[in-house]
């Protein structure tokens, strides 16, 4: 599934970033988006940042994702 989840980069070590998804932190590869910096919002797909997002727009999407989470029972292995 081509799901893309927006999150905020909290730290970067080499090719890897810690990304905060509304309170949950995950390690994300920056191999496809090497130019991003700490504090940037990125769109994440299968553990990779695939695009940098503008902050205001990312926050809007995050609000909507929260809403979706309430109704969406995640199925095993959705990506």
């Amino acid at each position, binding site marked *: *599934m*081509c*799901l*893309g989840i927006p999150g905020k980069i909290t730290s970067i070590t080499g090719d890897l970033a810690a990304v905060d998804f509304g309170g949950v932190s995950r390690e994300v*590869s920056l*191999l*496809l*988006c*090497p130019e991003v910096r700490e504090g940037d919002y990125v*769109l994440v*797909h*299968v*553990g*990779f940042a*695939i*695009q940098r*997002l*503008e902050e205001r*727009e*990312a926050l*809007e*999407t995050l*609000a*909507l994702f929260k809403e*979706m989470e309430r*109704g*969406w029972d995640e*199925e*095993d*292995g*959705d*990506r």
Partner: protein
Amino acid sequence: MRKMETDETRIASLVKEIPELLDGGFRAMEVCGTHTVSIFRSGIRSLLPESVDLISGPGCPVCVTPVGEIDKAVNLAHRKDVVILTFGDLMRVPGSTSSLSLARAEGSDVRIITSPLDTLAIAQAEPGKKAVFFAVGFETTSPAIAASVREARAKGIENLFILSSLRLIPPALRALLSSKKLALDGFLLPGHVSVIIGAAPYSFLVREFAIGGVITGFEALDILEGVSMLLRQKKEARAAIEIQYRRAVKEGGNPRALGIMDEVFMPVDASWRGLGTIPDSGLALREEFRGMDAAQAFDIPYEEVDDPPGCRCGEVLQGLIRPPECPLFGTRCTPQYPVGPCMVSSEGSCAAFYRYGALR
């Protein structure tokens, strides 16, 4: 709160505006399965006039993978020296006699991964085994897989192999339109595929078929905006590729991701469920990475296999019928006991229709 109110106002004004833009019937295809699910979840179909017909397309990677390719993965899973790695949505897709999920229940080593980078760690932890990554996905996923292949090569990992069922969206759209089975006024183009490829690869839609498309995001507001942009094109008698999902999609896509994908993979002819073989619509490892190609490393015959008897998934994927028109829908074929992949994948049209009780 203020933001939600703004969205609600915008949605209300679009719902009012859309009928005013309509001039007779209008039929658009939402290419991406994630769009299909979002359209149902948000109740958009009930907000649109009945003459706006949104039909689902071939944008569910699991659904378009033909039975013969599932069989290849299941055959490999039966080997004692192999561990199969795959995304979870493939597990229950039926092959001709079994599925990866059943193979695992029978003792095969089949593991679900959430990132292609997981495959490296598993291969390293299982030096006595051959780790085979059954890779299914579109342009959204392929660059991440390509980057992982490069990493595996750089780390000298020799027991990781790729069984590629990766596919490309634009050639499938060309095949759909060339078949001339379907009359369309426009496409809602897939947002996250387009994050990678940008807008240019769709320009042939306008040039060769005089059909426009709008690259659309996944929220209710995005989809309504996408529909209204398409209606406006029709009303103004023009066809163009436009981007609604501006917050994530750039004209040129993600050049870095495209570069890595191109370095590792090359386009090859590929077979799609329902659509048959489409030229240059799949991805295979390039010569330099052939050592990691499961198709070369293992002797796995590919057999073209018919879809299960009665299953009309192939027509659903081309937008030729709606899921409830299939005689198996909701009777012999349900999400719990799926016959075809469109009922297995959570983003398959049949699963979406079933889940949201849609009968038309």
